[in-house]
């Protein structure tokens, strides 16, 4: 509106103050306690170390996904010169700066590297000509170099973009914004490719014989969605605590909801594209992925994803009235966040025990993939047993608690909004037609 004068409102609270310290402390304690508990539980279980590693990997991936998603959000904001997203950008910036803690949190994964990634087993790889051909990509030194590059770029970009934005709070310099816009182009492309390759390295290589060109994109679709499920929840929570109450309006929630809906549908599009191509070609080295996930209980999880991540939200989140209703939007954010986790769970966990000696003998000795079903059925139940699920929850709380602690550590150190961003006035006045 041309003549509308923007009032930030003297009552609006841009700082977390002691609330930030409290959440930080709570997250830190809960996270460490949960991780210790998980380690104890894993040690007490029979061969629990293996289950712990995969539970931990799933939880770690969820927060890797949310952080990468936040970074793509920030980069996209600058790349498209957006103004609507200014009001929530600082929250995304803080979430995107979690790659250093995430790097530290890879220690258990590095310790259990040999157990997680079966392509590190010499005899396994050399038992299959297809895998021998993959050695040039799937070997430990190259894997580590790749991961180092991912993390160097992700850490560098996230710190640079947040640092410039926080510095702008002091000097209000337009030059900073222009500089960020300049760097956003290559940054966006770099993160896009990093996410694709991370999908291959951290998820697809768990089943090194599996071939699918769709999987990296499928992982990317999950990454794209995560931040739009998290941001509205964080914003609503902050507003309930009296922060940013006059700044974030129903119009911003509406736009976040649109993106959430769009990415959830894109996830379904790529997920189905992957399934249909594999279904049509019916080649064993492709179908193994779905074979394991259509056995016993995993068929229900596959169907739960189809309905929970696509069909139900397709109708439930379609209407603008739903996206403009805070309570309903919050419900769908929690819902899709849960199914986003289930998506990772579904990609990582069915093969926990398939890659063990019992599972491998069944796979290696079989030339008929359908004969796998009987042998595999017994071991696919294991990741769904109460103790394994308890480990999943504990790892989720553990990694999540530390992630939240670090996010609030950063949020506490600056304003909750880029208060001197040149686009702020336009962003505050956002109205959907």
């Amino acid at each position: 509106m041309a003549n509308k004068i923007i009032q930030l409102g003297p009552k609006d609270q841009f700082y977390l103050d002691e609330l930030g310290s409290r959440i930080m402390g709570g997250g830190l304690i809960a996270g460490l306690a949960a991780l210790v508990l998980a380690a104890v539980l894993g040690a007490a279980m029979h061969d629990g170390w293996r289950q712990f590693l995969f539970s931990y990997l799933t939880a770690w991936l969820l927060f890797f996904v949310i952080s990468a998603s936040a970074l793509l959000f920030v980069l996209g904001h600058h790349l498209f010169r957006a103004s609507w997203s200014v009001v929530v950008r600082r929250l995304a910036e803080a979430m995107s700066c979690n790659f250093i803690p995430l790097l530290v949190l890879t220690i258990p994964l590095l310790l259990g590297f040999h157990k997680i990634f079966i392509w590190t087993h010499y005899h396994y790889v050399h038992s299959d000509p297809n895998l021998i051909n993959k050695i040039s990509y799937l070997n430990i030194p190259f894997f580590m170099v790749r991961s180092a590059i991912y993390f160097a770029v992700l850490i560098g970009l996230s710190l640079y973009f947040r640092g410039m934005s926080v510095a702008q709070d002091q000097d209000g310099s337009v030059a900073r914004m222009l500089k960020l816009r300049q760097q956003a182009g290559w940054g966006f492309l770099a993160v896009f490719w990093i996410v694709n390759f991370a999908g291959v390295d951290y998820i697809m290589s768990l089943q090194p014989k599996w071939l699918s060109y769709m999987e990296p994109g499928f992982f990317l679709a999950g990454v794209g969605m995560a931040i739009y499920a998290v941001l509205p929840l964080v914003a609503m929570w902050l507003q309930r605590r009296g922060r940013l109450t006059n700044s974030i309006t129903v119009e911003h929630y509406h736009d976040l909801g649109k993106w959430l809906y769009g990415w959830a549908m894109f996830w379904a599009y790529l997920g189905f594209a992957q399934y249909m191509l594999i279904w049509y070609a019916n080649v064993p080295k492709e179908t193994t992925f779905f074979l394991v996930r259509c056995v016993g209980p995993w068929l229900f999880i596959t169907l739960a994803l189809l309905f929970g991540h696509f069909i139900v939200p397709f109708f439930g989140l379609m209407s603008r009235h739903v996206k403009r209703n805070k309570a309903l939007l919050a419900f769908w954010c929690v819902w899709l966040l849960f199914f986003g986790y289930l998506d990772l769970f579904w990609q990582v966990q069915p093969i926990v025990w398939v890659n063990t000696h019992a599972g491998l003998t069944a796979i290696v000795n079989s030339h008929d993939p359908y004969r796998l079903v009987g042998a595999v059925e017994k071991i696919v139940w294991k990741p769904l047993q109460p103790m394994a699920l308890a480990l999943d929850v504990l790892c989720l709380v553990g990694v999540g608690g530390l992630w939240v602690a670090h996010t609030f550590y950063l949020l506490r150190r600056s304003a909750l909004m880029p208060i001197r961003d040149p686009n702020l006035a336009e962003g505050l006045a956002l109205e959907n037609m």
Partner: protein
Amino acid sequence: MSTAQNMEKPMSAPRLYGLLAEFSDVQALLDAAVALRKAGYKRWDCYTPFPVHGMEKAMGLRPSILPWIAFTGAMGGVVSILALAPLCNAFLYPMIFSGKPYWGLPGHIPMAFALGILGGTVFVVHGMFVLARLPQFYHPLLHSERFRRVTDDGMFIAVEATDPSYSPSATTELLKKLGATAVEEVRD
């Protein structure tokens, strides 16, 4: 049709369409829209060179039913192909394609997707045309010389003479009071 009849009867006086009021800026237009709605006017509209935020609220416009029309079209497309494909492939002419079952649902989903988009877009475009009464090659307001500026910088409110609250003098008074820079009668 009515134009042709008018041309045959050139002696009859042109029908009064209503009052056209020009406003100087967006805010005045929005305020006037709120006041007109509160005064109980029903048959009137605002004309601007660009979309104005908050106008639907100021005018009290209800949400369009167009989304429901689009939804119906899209769902119609999806349902029809999910019925037609198995009907042909599994019942009327059972045939095996590349070793897939007669009723291979995954193979029908791309068609359902395409038909869903086709149905949605066809219904939304045609629904928009019907709801907006398009195509409309003629409008009484085009007689006004002043109204030409609506595609440049003119902001207008037109109150139709068929409105129950319409009265030539009182409505003119009201529009002028609301800040109209000019009010004129438009005849068909």
